[in-house]
């Protein structure tokens, strides 16, 4: 088994396990940490697929910025205990069954795919920063600029929500 393949399996296992742990840890902080683990694993996959740019972005944006934000919020709310009440068993069963069914169906439907992903880095330089940056600022400049609206609105939104206005709570 080539190294890349071994790495693939390792990362896959790591990702899945960490993902499961995200769901199953009762401590929110642990969940966050496990999720960061997933992101690392996924970044590993990106690197395996020669998508360095995304790997880096994933680490910086997701594992770095976003997850820190999460962690920050959780800490802010003082939720680092295992105090979360559990959903009803019925709901859990239903969730597991429907989730399993969905997975089964999707896998059953997609199992016959023929197609491959190259593991060598030689032929595919598209994932490099240089390449992507070039394309992003030429061909994709319109969506790029438009997504700035998104950020603007997110920013304004966060401000709107964050501002303290009145303290009277209406229920």
């Amino acid at each position, binding site marked *: 088994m080539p190294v890349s393949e071994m790495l*693939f399996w390792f990362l896959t296992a790591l990702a899945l396990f960490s993902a499961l742990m*995200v*769901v199953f840890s009762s401590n929110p902080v642990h969940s966050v940490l496990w999720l960061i683990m*997933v992101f690392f694993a996924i970044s590993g996959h990106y690197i395996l*697929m020669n998508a360095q740019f*995304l790997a880096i972005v994933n680490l910086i944006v997701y594992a770095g910025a976003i997850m820190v934000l999460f962690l920050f919020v959780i800490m802010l709310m003082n939720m680092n205990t295992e105090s979360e009440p*559990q959903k009803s068993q019925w709901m859990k069963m239903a969730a597991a069954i429907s*989730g399993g069914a969905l997975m089964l169906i999707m896998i059953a439907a997609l199992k016959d795919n023929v197609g491959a992903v190259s593991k060598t880095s030689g032929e595919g330089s598209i994932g490099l920063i240089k390449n*992507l940056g070039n*394309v992003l600022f030429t061909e994709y400049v319109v969506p790029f600029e438009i997504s700035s609206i998104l950020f603007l609105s997110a920013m304004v939104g966060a401000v709107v929500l964050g501002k303290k206005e009145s303290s009277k709570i209406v229920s």
Partner: protein
Amino acid sequence: MQVMPINYYIFLSIALFTIGIVGVLTRRNVIIIFMCIELMLNAVNVLLVAFSKMHHLNAYALDRATTAGTEAQLFVFFIMVVAAAEVTVGLAIIVMLYRNIHSVDINFLNRLKH
């Protein structure tokens, strides 16, 4: 040339996606639910990158100078961008709610029904 069947990636992605969904369904902590949604988005990202590489490989066989597959990687980039924006707003909402009810339990969100 070393290749991996695309199916592996598909299965991985599906598995992650499903785990995310199950998490959304089973957890009561809003933040964790949100995290599970992020997990789903990441599953999609993995899939997109894998497809990007697959298409690139296919095109590469015909044309060495191909840039096929770039768009998917950029798409992933945009997903991350959007996710970041979403998180900003999402967390703002969660904090706002927490300020009001001092809880992030989703089961408490039942004033609006019927």
